[in-house]
């Protein structure tokens, strides 16, 4: 049984078909990169996996740990170890980052049958995780994402991921808008979490982040379909030749 199994997934958003037959298997210990041009459906795929309800699945199925993922509520998915790092993390004024994270971690721990962490142990944990993303302790007591710079928001996402220790983490364009230092911090954070019992799906426009997080597989998503899959070399080839190269290849094949 694979960790994640997507079969012939078709998804519509407001009547437009965005995903048109996605097939993808992700197993533990793997890092998959999904690359593609703007509007190819990358973020839709991330949203469907996390349980956004703006999307209508018209065909296909998704199994996560052998269970029907589409039947699970977003919070159930999270408690089962699925994590989405948002492309645009939303500001939540009035909700303290630390308080929020504690509520989230304890909801997950409770689901796993573990004791809730008390304030002291929790603080110890988050302080150690803060270091991995090079965020200042003051971030703990600020409202979630409120007044954060773009880079800080992305690092905060990785910080949340480090605390929640997901089994399957989906990073939706976490690299976009990051300068080279922030990119390195984010990548180091991800690499530190890589284990044999978890997996990552990294959604990105650019090959750049894959210099730091080396994927096992690279998939190219164009017009709602995965048109090409390969090893890490594929990303370099894409960078060199551009997405048009894949598009042309697809069109040739379909002729």
């Amino acid at each position, binding site marked *: 049984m694979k960790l994640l199994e997507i079969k012939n997934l078709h998804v519509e958003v407001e009547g437009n078909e965005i995903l048109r037959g996605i097939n993808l298997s992700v197993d533990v210990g793997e890092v998959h990169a999904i690359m593609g041009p703007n509007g190819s459906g990358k973020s839709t795929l991330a949203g469907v996996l*996390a*349980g*956004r309800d703006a999307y209508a699945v018209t065909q296909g199925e998704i199994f996560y740990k052998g269970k029907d993922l589409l039947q699970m*509520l*977003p*919070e159930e*998915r*999270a*408690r089962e170890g699925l*994590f*989405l790092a*948002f492309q645009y*993390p*939303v500001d*939540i*004024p*009035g*909700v303290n980052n630390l308080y*929020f*994270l504690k*509520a*989230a*971690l304890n*909801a*997950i721990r409770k*689901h796993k049958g573990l004791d809730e962490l008390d304030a002291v142990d929790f603080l110890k944990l988050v302080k150690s995780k803060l270091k991995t993303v090079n965020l200042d302790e003051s971030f703990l007591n600020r*409202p*979630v994402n409120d007044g954060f710079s773009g880079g800080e928001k992305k690092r905060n996402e990785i910080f*949340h991921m480090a605390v*929640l220790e997901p089994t399957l983490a989906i990073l939706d364009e976490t690299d976009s808008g990051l300068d080279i230092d922030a990119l390195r911090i984010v990548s180091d954070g991800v690499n530190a979490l890589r284990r044999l019992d978890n997996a990552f799906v990294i959604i990105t426009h650019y090959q750049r982040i894959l210099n730091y997080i080396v994927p096992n597989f690279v998939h190219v998503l164009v017009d709602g379909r995965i048109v090409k899959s390969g090893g890490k070399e594929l990303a370099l080839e894409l960078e060199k030749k551009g997405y048009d190269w894949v598009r042309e290849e697809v069109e040739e094949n379909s002729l």
Partner: protein
Amino acid sequence: MVDVAQNSVLQWYVDRFKQYEDKLNGERNTSYHRMRKQAIQKFSDIGFPQRRDEEWRFTNIQPVINQHFLPALSQPVDARIQIDKRFILQNAIRLVVVDGFYSDALSDVSNIPDGVIAGSFARALKSEVPQLLNHFGKYVPAEKNGFTALNAAFYQDGIFLYVPPALKVEAPIQVLIISTQRDNPMTFSPRNLYVMGENSLSILIEFHISDSTDEYFSNVVNEIALGSEAQLEYSRVTLEGASGYHLNSTSVYQNSGSKFLSNDVVLSGAIVRNDFSISLRAPQCECQLNGVSVGTDSQLIDHHTAVEHGAPQCTSVQVYKTILDGRAHGVFNGKILVRKLAQKTDAKQTNRTLLLSDDAVMNSKPQLEIFADDVKCTHGAAIGQLDEEQVFYLRSRGIDERTAKNILTFAFASESLDGIHHEQLRSMIELELNSKLNQK
């Protein structure tokens, strides 16, 4: 003009007044009794407000008007009333009013500083304390409306507080206005006067609580005077019984350079109507009014604020937030009046409402009247629902939908509680707020 339908209920109160008067002896010839008589006359002339009155347009007060409430003219029989421990603030000067009467037994004035007068309004009135006579009836005139007239006719007691000039009162002063369960539907008329001397500094915390499950009507009048440079932090928590009606007229008179901060928290009561008037009558006054209200079921919560800029260089800020669920109805009417001589006025007003159900209703109305030409006045009103993206963000991290919504609702309110600097009070309010949100 009074409606025919109102006549019987007006006559009811007029008759109750006559009965009361007949039992009086020497008091009948006092000047304050003459004021009461004038007030009942005014009441019978003007009657209760009607929906056609602009100030009452959105507020259905029929349940209050239709009932024949018996004015409480004597102390409750059972003197063994216990105050819920949750509401007792530690290390505070405690002043307690039960059913409109000051209670020596429940109050704690053991650590009032020298020069401070704190206790029964009626006693201070009878002994003609000059600091009371100088201010009583000046800021909330009996003829303001039918309710203030009724209070002026039937009030028996309440709190009188006087803080002398240049005194910093370290201990918070807690006023508890309690309405108890009685055999008949009663109306209580607490009358409170708070006089803060020049350059004094105080924290005043007023609670309106009840253990009654039946209908009652608490008809409150508060007058507050701030001397020059005086500073007052005034927090008010309204936690009336589920069938209780609370009508409150509070007027604040500010002298030059004084600072007034209020935090008005309304959590329960079938109908709560707070009229809050601030008069900035000398230069360089500051006032900040914060409000947080949570209405569920078919509660009606109405805030009518009126800030009068009557002198130059004063600032006023109003931030009122309302959360409505079920079939609750909220009203905010915020008037800012800037008189011609009040140049360099800086007045801000914000009203934000969170509607948690399809059946909740909010009426929000800013009302700006500006006669000066060099002023900054802004106002804004927003009525909305919880942000779906925020709810999804929380859920995607493992928090269930209901908890996520409660966290966001609480966050919406909590920003307005930042003005409460008394820690125990703030955590008590947060607890009450959370338990109310979790009850839904």
